[in-house]
């Protein structure tokens, strides 16, 4: 039996923030910043992007005015929550010279407790993908696992699709059935502004029990369902079916060289992708050579150093690098982790400076078959 649905009135939403802060969470949510919506620390609903939407296309993004009071009327922030769960730069350990050897000093800083508010279904799906990467198998990334275990997820369902969205074809949205603590669906109807709410975990139920709420009206639930349907049906892009098998069979497609003419190997797609996890280790010393530090930094399969092994880089051409990224994401990720690495958020399309579209490239490779 799913939990019975309740609604939280807009004016009572602030209590959620207060409650989460009281329970020791740092609240992270969508916020207008520099002409975009980004995930940032926010402490009240007043900081949410009220009435702000976004317009997205290949290599194009603009904020828009929706003309309503919705707080979550945008699609997805610029970068995902990856930056919080898997920081761009992480000190792993340091070492001090001791006699003829050295002594390792572990970084024992406590991991943060984040409450993520306004998480989209694609974002949550991306977290579940990264869980497999960092926590699946025998070698668990302990820092990630702790941050992930500490975090609380307040999912907010989408009310429309962005032009770059294709989660419906990836089966990763716009609705989510697991993995969240609370799920909100924002409904605005005239002066009525409520959030249809359900809990998805014990943590979520405990939070919900402390919030002021009413039973959902029929109209609220119907409106929330209609919004979700619009978000699914309104998607203009779709990933072709059977893309994993197709790409595995098309490693020598001439299309890779066609993409290479447009691709700048700048790495933006990998940086904004909520599942891309490649990193590099940086070892540094101080000038005296008495102290050393190891740092893990985001890297990209589009960099030359990334595939550098003895004698040179493995992937010398832009075509080879794009092929590596796309076939990993959509094809051999499935073999490696049991799911596709693509959640259909479309960020790689939007934030590619030249608007390369992974769904269109997949279609082009299929056509060239």
């Amino acid at each position: 039996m799913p939990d019975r649905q309740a609604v939280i009135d807009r004016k009572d939403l602030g209590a959620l923030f207060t409650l989460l802060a009281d329970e020791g969470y740092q609240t992270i949510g969508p916020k207008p910043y520099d002409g975009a919506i980004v995930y940032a620390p926010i402490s009240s609903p007043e900081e949410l992007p009220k009435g702000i939407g976004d317009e997205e296309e290949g290599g194009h993004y603009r904020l828009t005015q929706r003309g309503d009071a919705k707080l979550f009327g945008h699609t997805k922030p610029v970068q995902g929550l990856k930056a919080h769960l898997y920081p761009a730069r992480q000190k792993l350990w340091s070492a001090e010279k001791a006699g003829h050897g050295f002594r390792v000093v572990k970084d024992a800083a406590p991991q943060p407790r984040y409450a993520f508010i306004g998480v989209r279904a694609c974002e949550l799906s991306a977290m579940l993908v990264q869980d497999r990467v960092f926590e699946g198998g025998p070698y668990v990334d302990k820092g990630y696992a702790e941050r992930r275990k500490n975090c609380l997820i307040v999912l907010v369902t989408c009310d429309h699709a962005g032009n770059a969205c294709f989660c419906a074809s990836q089966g990763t949205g716009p609705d989510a059935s697991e993995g969240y603590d609370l799920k909100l669906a924002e409904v605005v109807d005239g002066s009525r502004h409520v959030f249809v709410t359900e809990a998805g975990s014990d943590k979520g139920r405990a939070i919900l029990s402390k919030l002021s709420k009413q039973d959902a009206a029929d109209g609220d639930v119907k409106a929330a369902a209609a919004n979700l349907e619009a978000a699914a049906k309104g998607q203009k892009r779709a990933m072709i079916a059977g893309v994993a098998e197709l790409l595995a069979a098309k490693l020598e497609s001439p299309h890779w060289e066609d993409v290479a003419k447009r691709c700048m190997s700048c790495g933006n797609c990998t940086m904004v992708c909520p599942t891309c996890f490649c990193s590099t280790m940086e070892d540094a010393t101080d000038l005296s050579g008495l102290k050393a530090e190891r740092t893990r930094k985001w890297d990209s399969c589009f960099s030359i150093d990334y595939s550098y092994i003895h004698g040179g880089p493995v992937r010398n051409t832009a075509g080879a690098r794009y092929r590596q990224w796309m076939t990993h994401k959509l094809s051999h990720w499935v073999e490696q982790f049991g799911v596709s690495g693509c959640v259909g958020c479309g960020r790689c399309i939007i934030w590619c400076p030249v608007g390369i579209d992974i769904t269109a490239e997949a279609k082009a490779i299929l056509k060239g078959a």
Partner: protein
Amino acid sequence: MSAREKPRLGVFKFSSCDGCQLSLLDCELELLAVTDAVEIAYFLEATRKDMKGPFDVVLVEGSITTPHEAELIRQIRKSSKVLITIGACATSGGIQALRNFADVNGFLDIVYARPDYIETLDTATPIADHVQVDFELRGCPINKYQLLEVLNAFLNKRKPNIQNYAECIECKQRGTVCVMVAKGVACLGPVTQAGCGGLCPASHRGCFGCFGPMETPNTTALADRFLNELGQDKGTVLRAFRSFNANAPAFREESLKHE
């Protein structure tokens, strides 16, 4: 380590604005650690002490623009174990390499009352065009933290942590919203080497390419975007690629296409 064993550092200047060697003085607190680690044997911007070589590590700023400089850099190379060039002038020719696209005598006639007093070369060229260079540190100016990292790496006999990938990676690591995608501002970031930390995009400006071409620059794709999507004309695209690193091969070739 006794003073006698300290590596000897020389800092030399060729045609340049001095900004890059100033980055060394700008290291402030870290400068004390540098002076602990090396003996500054020649650094006219910092000290009148004028010690002769040989040097263990030499930092060279500036490009080669005169016959005298072309000779001097050979002498410095001969007396240096490790020679590191710093800045856009030393690594690509600098802003003065704009002369490479025109007749230098034309500039001489306009700028100097007595052009016959001036002895100059037709081109401004990077140090590596003249002598073997052990490491090139990019930037206009260089980033002082990168300079410390390179000195540190050579002193500790390790590989410097200097990335050759695109500036975009630094912008995204920093969380900067892309100015080209979100504001339609032309930005050289996708073809420019990281290193500045993403200064200009964080201040809502497009990247000016101070750190020169990244490792695999697809300037054609970016120029097409400037022309076809951002509404720039050929002259604007030409000037974008022809600035501090005008003579870096990838930028030079791209700007020539838009003449």
